[in-house]
């Protein structure tokens, strides 16, 4: 070949970036199944707001723009318990209401978590009378209690973050004893 061809390899700029490279990072990721699933689940909490009383105002405040629970992946309320993971019990639960709340809880699919939002759902608050259930943990397991009458939005966000930590730490069996 008489023609002089430059032998210096000339690569178009950017070829390395588009071509799959064996040396690139994150080709493989090693983790534990529980950590991966927990990481996914903690940022996709679908709350079911079971709203019965004045704490609802604070729930609206914490859901909307200035505080924005969407930052924690927990903004979109599902109005069917069958589509939701987190039962937020917002307000006073009476003995007359308790069977309805329990039915809603039982309709939720696993995995599910419960937040007692405010003093009344936590402990009955300042009520002690014929009508009021003194804390929803008398009829169902509760994962996180948010104190306050009503709670500050920061308190609720702290509760959501604590719940996220709990979800990230806990086991996520593919098949559990309820399934």
């Amino acid at each position, binding site marked *: 070949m008489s023609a002089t061809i430059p032998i210096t390899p000339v690569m178009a700029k950017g070829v390395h970036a588009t071509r799959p490279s064996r040396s690139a990072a994150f080709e493989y990721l090693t983790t534990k199944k529980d950590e991966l699933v927990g990481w996914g689940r903690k940022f996709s909490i679908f709350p079911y707001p079971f709203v019965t009383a004045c704490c609802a105002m604070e729930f609206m405040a914490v859901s909307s723009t200035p505080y924005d629970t969407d930052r924690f992946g927990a903004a979109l309320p599902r109005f069917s318990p069958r589509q939701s993971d987190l039962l937020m019990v917002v307000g006073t639960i009476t*003995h*007359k209401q*308790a*069977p309805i709340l*329990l039915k809603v809880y039982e309709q939720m699919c696993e995995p599910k978590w419960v937040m007692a939002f405010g003093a009344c759902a936590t402990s009955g608050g300042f009520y*002690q*009378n*014929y*009508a009021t*259930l*003194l804390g929803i*943990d*008398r*009829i*169902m*397991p509760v994962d996180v209690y948010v104190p306050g009458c009503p709670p500050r939005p920061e308190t609720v966000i702290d509760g959501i973050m604590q719940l996220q930590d709990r979800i990230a730490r806990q086991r996520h069996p593919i098949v559990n004893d309820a399934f």
Partner: protein
Amino acid sequence: MRDTVLASLRDDFADTAKASIDRGALLLAVDPQEVIATATRLRRDYGFDLLLDVTAVDWPGRPLRFDVVWHFYSTTQRVRARMTTAVAEASPDVATLTGLYGSAGFMERECHDMYGIRFAGNADLRPILLYEGFVGHPLRKDYAKEHEQPLVPYRDER
């Protein structure tokens, strides 16, 4: 203006009831058998077209233990009237006002829930705020305040 209306009402009702003016309202203490007649008079002749409340007061230890209380308001004259009658615990019976005021139905149901007053003629005295199976009347003074009647068994009892 209101005081002159109230004074003339008090004088008009002095024949059938113990009438007085109390805290800016006409107060009529009547016998239980006079309830319908007095309420009819208030409604038909004096324009008390709004029944605001039906409730009761528990006086433990008194021979006639309960006062049943009705609150009326006249939207034309803008005055209030309160009618009370005393009944015994053994027979807490008064006549219903559902024939005069439609709103009496729910309020009498609530009063029946809370105090056990029986409104003769009210065909529907099912629980309205309480639930089926609730025993007792929670606003009576002898109902213990911490007494609960849960519908769902508690977790530690299951």
